[in-house]
């Protein structure tokens, strides 16, 4: 039996003396969520902060939202700023319905998120 095909890529980008960026591209669902969960687990969550870039996200189900919430919980516990970048309108609508638009910090692009963290 072959493993179900993962249509998700998660790319960690370390910037020297800057925030840690996780680029998430593709479909974040029940099957692929462990990939992002592992990346969140390995993220530093230090004073430089963490940015999750969702501009390449095509789909996110409830398991995917659980992973994003786990990242939020870690950032709160560590006192490390967390922001989400490039959220598309459909995904923002989903965040609004579950009330996460009031909880998460959003920026239009990863670059804006980096600038906001460095101010």
């Amino acid at each position, binding site marked *: 039996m072959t493993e179900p095909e993962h249509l998700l890529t998660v790319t960690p980008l370390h910037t020297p003396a800057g925030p840690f960026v996780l680029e998430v591209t593709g479909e974040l669902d029940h099957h692929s969520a462990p990939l992002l969960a592992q990346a969140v687990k390995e993220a530093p969550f230090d004073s430089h902060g963490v940015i999750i870039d969702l501009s390449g996200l095509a789909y996110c189900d409830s398991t995917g939202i659980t992973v994003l919430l786990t990242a939020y*919980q870690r950032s709160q516990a560590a006192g490390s700023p967390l922001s989400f970048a490039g959220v598309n309108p459909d995904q923002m609508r989903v965040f609004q319905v579950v009330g996460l638009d009031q909880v998460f910090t959003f920026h239009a692009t990863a670059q804006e998120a980096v600038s906001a963290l460095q101010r």
Partner: protein
Amino acid sequence: MATVAIVDTDRVWFKAAHGLTDVTQIRRDPGLCSSAILHGEPYVVADAATDARALANPLVQGDIGVRFYAAAPITTADGQRLGTVDVLDTRPRKPTDVQLDTLQDLAALVMDELELRLSAIRTVAAERDRRTEAERLARTLQRTLLPPALPTVPGLQAAAAYHTASPHEVGGDFYDLFPLDDGRWAFFLGDVCGKGAEAAALTSLTRYTLRAAAIYHPDPCAALSHLDSVLKGEYQGSDPRYCTAVFGVLQPLADGSFTVTLAGGGHPSALAVRVGGRVEPISTAGGQLVGMLPNPQFVQTTTRLSPGESLLLYTDGLTEARTPDGTMLDEDGLTQHLLSTYVHAEDRSADGLLGSVEALLHRLGDGVSDDTALLALSVPIQPEPRTQEKR
């Protein structure tokens, strides 16, 4: 010419052949393969023209004109002979013992190859059976979490449905409708995160927690807060879980209408279909998902359902479904659908409302990627008397 032949009760099947074209199967005429398979060791016809065993065989008599034939049986580990590996020629030949040993080795290789294939097929089939069984169990468990039938609420019609998006992934949607002890009725509908057996377990906990909470917490927001505490206690640590839900209380009024108090925790708006066909969102926007946020806000709202009006509750499998042009259906698309299909007042019964939404789900087809629970409540235009004593 060379072949790998499988011999069954009626026919000889050439499953592989070299130099023998246009013949894939022949009758079981004696003399060649059909005779060879009766022997546990290599079978040789050095010259069919002078060999009484093979003389009458169609391959010898026909256009091909086989003169030489040697075969080694393909034998299973338990001694059953399935067929033969054959070499043939149109000239007489005398094979050496070494050549016949090689032929027997080739037959053994074919058997190994068949065993390997068979074992792979069996493994795949066993794996598929296990998965089907696991899915069936998860589906069965999930079904037991829904009420087998909705209770009869005097003066109200209620209808519910559970729409499954994929037989392979069991979702965790839930709903219920039940009496409180003071003449009021409570209902809830929601969706837990995740899929499969774990989602079913979370659904079970959520459903029983909400039913119990309804008794002790007359305020719908308090019931959601109670659920939030229970989920946090149960799923603390590295494996947190959440759900979204609406929880409502129905208070029957003297004029036949009902006051509906609705609390939402991260759940899409309910939709009320008013007299005249107007569709009004009963929004609990701002309410947050249950079980994973430090201090979640739940939002409560109140509306009145008069005779001829109905209320639709649904999970996001419906509003997050994709329309044929690739966009999300969303609340707007659902509202448009209800406005366009709700032509007649009699369609505004709970059954009519449910039927309309189920038709929409059917039309969206593969665009619906998640399970969807639906609960429709309606107040009939002419409410039946509260108690009927026809004797």
